[in-house]
């Protein structure tokens, strides 16, 4: 079982290996996709094996995976698979038309593989110190993806990203120190003492004052990576400047990895401090994020930034759901993690296709997408409805669960506020997207008219563009209609881990 854990974390490195060996973009992307598929398969095997109840443990707790880790591993490896498939055509086309040099392509796949591997590894570590190390390393590696295009704008975004996230994660390290300190009455001589299952088991012996500080610092610190307001400022820049498949990874995988770290701290804090304090912290950051995300979405502009604001909003929803708590709230939060990840990956991948065809990232310059490129336009429309929580897609179900959890807690104020904010977000997002999808081609034919012909070299490449979109939307649709029994068990069991 230990071997399985290692294979899952190392599998995406196939993409890095192929790129380092000098393969072209298409082949590296396919190698990456194969690795991601192996990781996904391994994760599902792991989840089946974990259903016996015993978690995967090894090396003094440095390696630890229970169903909660398994669930996040599944989300991240699934997103990696979609983004790798998206890279086949996106990076392939950019390599063909000379927008990316062969060195940049090599850089992209090397760091992409390492980025995915580091995130998967961080989800498999029970040691909170190592969790910090791996998450910080994933920041550094992904900064290279953000700055890949080397223009002043992308370098600026990468700088903002790396400096703000590093500071944030360092604050989380201070939180980890205080958590460790709060356990000073326990025997803390061994490596085991900084593993979260050990701390959770001995939660009664933790000092409440320093635990409180530890939870707050960890939420602020890892919240920076999650993109919770007001620490979200790096997020729109990084998401809009990164190549689209990398944006999908940032939004759908990286943010969730940060959320996973917060959830681990939440479990310990909840066990010792009870619900009130963690709930107050999470509800404040969550609602701040939803408000800011929703308001920023109303402005029309760069469509990749629009998706990024929507990520801020959704991370806020997840934080609020964790704050609502209870079996229902936690179930909804986790389901939202999965459904948002799928929907957002699809949206960022369509944005890649759109920006290749229209040579712009401004929503105002794009129109008539449905007529010009029916598949991409359709995926954009469906993906947008999915992310906004329309039935019959999965996000509807998870948001419904979260609102129900809010009402179940008693006061109707918070769930009603949540519903109102979701309405604002719907309005802002849909306004921009309908403008892009409907109508004819942009009339005055500015510089940003759709480039004549296909940006892809051949039909096969163009066809591959469709694969991740259809795959993601299908899973989203299925999740909206029916939660498979296995997934239901995993979600319910993970919710009991949190408390």
């Amino acid at each position, binding site marked *: 079982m230990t071997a399985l854990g290692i294979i899952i974390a190392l599998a995406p490195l196939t993409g890095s290996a192929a790129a380092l060996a000098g393969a072209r973009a298409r082949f590296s992307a396919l190698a990456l996709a194969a690795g991601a598929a192996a990781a996904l398969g391994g994760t599902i095997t792991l989840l089946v094996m974990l259903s016996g109840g015993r978690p995967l443990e090894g090396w003094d707790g440095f390696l630890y995976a229970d169903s909660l880790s398994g669930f996040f591993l599944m989300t991240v490896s699934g997103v990696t698979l979609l983004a790798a498939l998206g890279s086949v055509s996106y990076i392939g086309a950019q390599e063909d038309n000379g927008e990316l040099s062969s060195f940049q392509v090599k850089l992209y796949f090397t760091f992409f593989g390492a980025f995915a591997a580091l995130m998967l590894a961080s989800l498999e570590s029970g040691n909170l110190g190592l969790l910090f*190390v791996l998450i910080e390393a994933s920041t*550094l590696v992904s*900064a290279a993806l953000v700055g890949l295009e080397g223009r002043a704008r992308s370098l600026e*975004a990468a700088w903002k990203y790396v400096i703000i996230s590093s500071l944030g994660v*360092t604050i989380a390290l201070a939180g980890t120190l205080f958590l460790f300190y709060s356990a000073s009455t326990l025997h803390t001589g061994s*490596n085991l003492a900084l593993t979260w299952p050990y701390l959770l088991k001995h939660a009664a012996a933790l000092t409440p004052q320093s635990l409180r500080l530890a939870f707050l610092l960890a939420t602020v610190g890892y919240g920076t990576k999650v993109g919770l307001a007001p620490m979200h400022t790096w997020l729109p820049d990084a998401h809009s400047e990164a190549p689209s498949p990398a944006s999908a990874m940032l939004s759908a995988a990286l943010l969730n990895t940060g959320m996973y770290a917060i959830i681990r701290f939440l479990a310990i804090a909840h066990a010792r401090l009870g619900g009130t304090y963690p709930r107050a912290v999470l509800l404040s950051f969550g609602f701040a994020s939803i408000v800011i995300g929703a308001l920023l979405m109303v402005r029309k502009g760069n469509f990749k930034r629009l998706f990024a604001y929507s990520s801020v909003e959704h991370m806020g929803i997840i934080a609020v759901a964790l704050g609502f708590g209870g079996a229902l709230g936690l179930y909804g939060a986790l389901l939202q993690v999965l459904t948002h990840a799928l929907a957002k990956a699809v949206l960022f991948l369509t944005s890649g296709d759109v920006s290749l065809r229209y040579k712009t990232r401004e929503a105002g310059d794009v129109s008539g997408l449905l007529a010009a490129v029916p598949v991409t336009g359709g995926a954009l429309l469906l993906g947008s409805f999915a992310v906004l929580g329309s039935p019959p897609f999965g996000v509807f179900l998870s948001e419904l669960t979260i609102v129900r959890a809010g009402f179940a807690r008693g006061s109707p104020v918070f769930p009603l506020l949540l519903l109102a904010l979701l309405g604002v977000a719907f309005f802002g997002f849909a306004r921009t997207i309908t403008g892009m999808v409907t109508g004819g081609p942009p009339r005055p034919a500015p510089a940003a008219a759709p480039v004549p012909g296909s940006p892809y070299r051949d039909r096969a490449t163009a066809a591959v563009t469709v694969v991740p979109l259809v795959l993601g939307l299908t899973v989203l649709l299925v999740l909206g209609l029916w939660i498979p029994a296995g997934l239901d068990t995993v979600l319910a069991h993970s919710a009991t881990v949190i408390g």
Partner: protein
Amino acid sequence: MQYLSASSTAGVLLDLAGAAILLLAFACLASKLFNRYVVYYGAQSWVLSFAAGTSAAAFHSTELWILAGLTLAIKGTAIPVAARRVLMARLALRRDAAMSAGLSTSLVAGGALTAFAYLVTRPVLLPHGTAAAAVVPLSTAVILLGALTMVLRRHTVAQLIGWLIVENGVFLGAITLVATFPFIVEAAIFLDIVAGVLIMIVFVSGLTRQLAQASAGELKELRG
């Protein structure tokens, strides 16, 4: 877990080292010249290495001795030298003009943050009479001062130094608060810092080549 008492020799030395580290963070905040930033950061790392050595001697810990050595070699020597050679010399950086607040305002704000650090950490968290009770407020203050440097200075190099000061503050807290932090983790944190500095240097040089001056204040194309 064992605690150092504040009145033991090691406790007194740690306390002194903590105070020196705080003063050097203030010195950085009060300076306008790029090479001063690097000098103060280097000196701070040397004192930090001394503090780690003191802690190592008190706890008879080989791992802490190694960390003291690593601090001296990497933070005290390699990073300052790299910063001078790769950034200061090549980019011809001298005076830092990109500040959001004057020096005196910065210092007043720094003083307020230091007081705040004492207010938050001292009374509730720590048992009295231990070295940790004396040093942790200092390290919290260093973290806040580093963050303040990052906020008030708009030049990318100054922000990088600010982050490194924050890192030093966390490390000072680590060696006094939890001397037994797992070694592999500590070593890996070092690795992260080195990688972080390297990648940041790449971005700073890239940005400087693109813009005449890599001041984050002039990075205005993207707005949150």
